[in-house]
């Protein structure tokens, strides 16, 4: 009889609780959510009659959800862009061997230690436009005081959605090549989303800075020296040496920030709510609203599944890629 490998048994026993818990509380409930999203549970009392994909059909026909998707996409793109650009610039500046580097590094990184709720509340105060009776408040007041009153505007209370006007030259051109749908408010950026991006990027760009700074410090001086000896200009060094070497960092930053922004909820709740004409509404907020206010559990679950798929599209290739590169090591 083969000797029982105690080590192995113990290892399995020790792992079993967390494997079991993950299986039930993560994958089990994902499965349950998927099941509910196919059911008729639209009231307090559960009704598990299966109705196929009709919840999804209705969901994608729902104007609020369409606006939510637009907001999520535009928020994610703007947020990533701003975080990466600002983060890289800060890292680049700090990397210039300045004095008191530690202080600057901490100042830029600290916002990340705050929860989105706090960020949201503070930025709501900052960006509340004020009213005719009470006068301007927050940033608008600042503009007024320094003589830039013309910059005052409604921030997240402004219903405007920037998009390509269908009757403009570009709109006409798109119409002619069969892409007329691009010139509609459904493909655009609402003012409210811009306000949200400001707050979110303020919080998270310090984090990208930290990542980029680590990356920059990892590029050896010999490489730069070698390039200089070969006669490369500083700009060439930046675009041909440094940025390509930072690509893995950029990828990690995109993955991490991307899934934060796709799931964003707390910032919206604290800062703006769904906004005028849902200008700052996001799928996660709609999910909460329809499930716990409207009792529409089926639709809420359908939104949850859509969110999961969106995040999976971002995360799964990254996981595959990272496990593969680990295996190669």
């Amino acid at each position, binding site marked *: 009889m083969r000797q029982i490998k105690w080590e192995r048994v113990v290892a399995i026993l020790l792992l079993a609780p967390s494997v079991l818990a993950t299986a039930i509380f993560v994958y089990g409930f994902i499965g349950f959510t998927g099941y509910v999203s196919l059911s008729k549970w639209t009231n307090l009392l559960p009704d598990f009659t299966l109705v196929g994909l009709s919840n999804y059909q209705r969901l994608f026909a729902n104007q609020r959800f369409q*606006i939510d998707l637009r907001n999520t996409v535009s928020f994610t793109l703007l947020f990533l862009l701003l975080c990466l650009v600002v983060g890289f610039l800060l890292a680049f500046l700090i990397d210039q061997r300045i004095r008191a580097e530690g202080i600057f590094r901490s100042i830029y990184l600290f916002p990340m230690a705050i929860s989105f709720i706090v960020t949201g509340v503070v930025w709501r105060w900052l960006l509340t436009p004020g009213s005719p009776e009470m006068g301007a408040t927050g940033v608008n007041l600042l503009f007024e005081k320094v003589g830039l009153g013309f910059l005052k505007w409604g921030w997240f209370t402004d219903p405007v959605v920037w998009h390509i006007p269908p009757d403009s030259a570009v709109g006409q051109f798109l119409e002619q090549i069969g892409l007329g749908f691009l010139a509609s408010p459904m493909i655009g950026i609402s003012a409210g989303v811009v306000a949200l991006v400001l707050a979110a990027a303020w919080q998270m760009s310090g984090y990208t800075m930290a990542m980029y700074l680590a990356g920059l410090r990892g590029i050896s001086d010999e490489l730069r020296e070698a390039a200089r000896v070969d006669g490369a200009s500083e700009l060439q060094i930046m675009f041909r040496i440094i940025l390509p070497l930072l690509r893995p960092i950029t990828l990690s930053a995109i993955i991490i920030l991307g899934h934060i922004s796709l799931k964003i909820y707390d910032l919206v709740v604290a800062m703006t709510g769904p906004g005028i004409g849902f200008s700052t509404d996001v799928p996660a907020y709609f999910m909460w609203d329809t499930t716990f*206010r*409207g009792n529409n559990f089926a639709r809420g679950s359908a939104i949850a599944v859509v969110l999961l798929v969106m995040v999976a599209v971002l995360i799964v290739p990254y996981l595959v890629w990272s496990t593969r590169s680990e295996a190669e090591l």
Partner: protein
Amino acid sequence: MKKMLNLLILAVLVLTLIPVAASAQEGVVCQEEVTVAADDWLSKYADKYFGNVLSWPAIMALHNQAAADDPASFPNSIVNADILEVGWTICIPAEDAAEAFLATYDPDKPETLYAAGESGQLVVGSWWTAGGEAEGLAGMFRIYEEQYPGVEIVNATVAGGAGTNFKAVNKTRLLGGDPADTFQLHAGLEVETYSPETYLQPVDDIYASEGLEQVFPPDLLTLLKYQDHYWGVPVNIHRSNVLWYNEALFGELGLTPPANFEEFQQVAEALQAAGIQPYVMGTKDGWEAGHVFEDVLAGTLTPEEYRGLWTGEFSWMDPKVTQALENFKMMLSYVNEDHPALTWDGAGEYLIGGTGGMMIMGDWTDGWFTSKEFTGYGWAPPPGTQGIFVALSDSFSLPAEAPNLENAENWLRVCGSLEGQEAFNPQKGSICARTDCDPALFNEYLQSAMVDWSQDAIVPSVAHGAAAIESWATDYKDVLTLFVASGDVAAGQAGLQQACVDAGVCQ
């Protein structure tokens, strides 16, 4: 050796997983009896004896138990966690008993903080936590205590969000088979949300024994019936359709409140010409646009047609609904620009400041104006709703699994009684659901509402849960939120129709 070590670790892990069985308590053992001094708080004791301010519920619950077991030593029980009187003797429970209590304590179930009286407890769930409504509720509690002494009333309120937070807690308790004895819900179709046939029980007996069918208006009785049964007793009535206006401004400009939408436009033009914001609204919280539009619908349709919208007998695609949306759009062209940033009371500041002319909002506005010491307001039905009362009402219901059924039934008797309603409504700033309340108890606005209540056609409010199930009501509000931003009548009407289809009422 290593094997042994591994096994040992494993054994320790397994042992920690086994929950320690809580030892049963025979009476409460006090580790100390303290006399309350000035500036003492429960959380202060909790910090002193247990090293954690959050342990205060253990002191409250176990002290109250001790007070019930041994009234001679502890004559005072703690009714409100924030109120201790100097000189009371408080039982500080033993540490293990406190820990055992806290291990099972659920903040959503405040009744565990109270000992049961001789005749048990009455756990009343509501979202009335502050101001006049809390005082009104306390008034009804006093009447109940007089009539049914020996019952310990537990006021299980959950603050916030126009009842949203309360409803979330309440649903969990209902689904878990552990409800309060009675809880607040909007009268009307909101009851469908609670799947009454499963979770509630009909209260037809109480209607019969208390003669409630004779004192409530017939239109209200129709509204309250769901599947031919009554599921709750309404305590108050609010009116959704009231047009508030600044009386001084109207006087100066020689205007009268508009009776129809043409007049509304004329009045608005006159106000605008005078440099006044003609119509004000706040839409920040997402329900206000839906609230105003239900009044516009009621003003454009007949009462029968309006009711038909919610039962599927009148089509949302009817040209009259188009007309209602056009009317609303016309009104929106006179609205204040900053409405997305304001709540309804923020918009009301325009009226108080004399910079806004008219506002449509429910009759809680009257109480709000009073609290702001503003008297220069007048009221009228919004355009087209003369003789129509768009009503919403709070009622109390009877859960199927109410732990103290008899106490709960007696509570509903108090809710429906003349005495109970007269105690509650003047405080809350609403009128009685009964038609026989004494008008002298109410202020001028409420008296006029009482007259209308007894003679108008009564239709249900959708924005406040009377006309439709919640999923439909939220979809309806979503459509209106979009409409206010876009002004697209065709899309708005299609959205309203789709919401009706999704609710399973329209085809």
